[in-house]
């Protein structure tokens, strides 16, 4: 049998056949707490970006002089910004806690062949976090 004969008898569909697939709603994550938590955690990144914009604005005002910086501080007293900062703070805390709680799975530490318990790794992160935060606060408040 020649190859051309084989080719003639084989029928290829031009497109991949579609199999039945249930349409997933755009809001699939709204109705189950673990899914909602996942999306909220991912959305925390938006508030991280907001913080960066805020910080760059602060540095800019700080370098522009005392009047500009006083204006920045006045902006921060505006209820809109206070609310936004409060919401952002909650989201950033969500990021910090979920990040630390996942750390043991990202890095598996072994000491003398035995795996370091997850709680120790997460705990070490929390302790380091308190230390770093305390250091930053001390630098700014002293």
């Amino acid at each position: 049998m020649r190859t051309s004969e084989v080719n003639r008898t084989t029928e290829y569909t031009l497109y991949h056949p579609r199999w039945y697939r249930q349409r997933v709603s755009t809001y699939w994550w709204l109705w189950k707490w673990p899914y909602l938590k996942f999306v909220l955690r991912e959305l925390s990144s938006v508030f991280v970006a907001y913080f960066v914009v805020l910080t760059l604005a602060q540095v800019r005002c700080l370098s522009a002089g005392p009047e500009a910086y006083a204006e920045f501080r006045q902006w921060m007293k505006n209820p809109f910004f206070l609310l936004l900062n409060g919401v952002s703070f909650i989201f950033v805390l969500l990021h910090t806690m979920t990040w630390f709680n996942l750390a043991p799975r990202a890095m598996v530490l072994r000491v003398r062949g035995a795996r370091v318990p997850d709680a120790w790794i997460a705990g070490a992160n929390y302790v380091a976090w308190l230390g770093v935060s305390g250091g930053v606060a001390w630098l700014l408040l002293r």
Partner: protein
Amino acid sequence: MAKKPMEPFLWGLFSAGGVVAAFLIPVHLFLFGLAFPLGWLKPPSYASLHALLQHPLTRVYLFVLCSLPLFHWAHRFRYTLYDGLQIKHLNEVITVFCYGGAVAGTAFAGYLLWNLP
């Protein structure tokens, strides 16, 4: 896909930014965004903050604090739009917007901190 080799690099930036954001952003946001404006704590004077900003280490610190978390945002937000809202037909636009935004923000931060008076 030609873009795949970039993925580990972008994930590395995402991860590093996540660490910086987790450790440093809460205290900054709490102090400057809530505690100082609401009068819970006495804010540092303009002179002392300005003096702090003169130090090269502060500038490096602020650069890292701004740049890496932007890449963290870019990576996470990109996949939030992709999986969460299933906006798959705009994939290229979203990728350019997210990483482009992070690169632009990093460039602006570098420019600003380098040229401080």
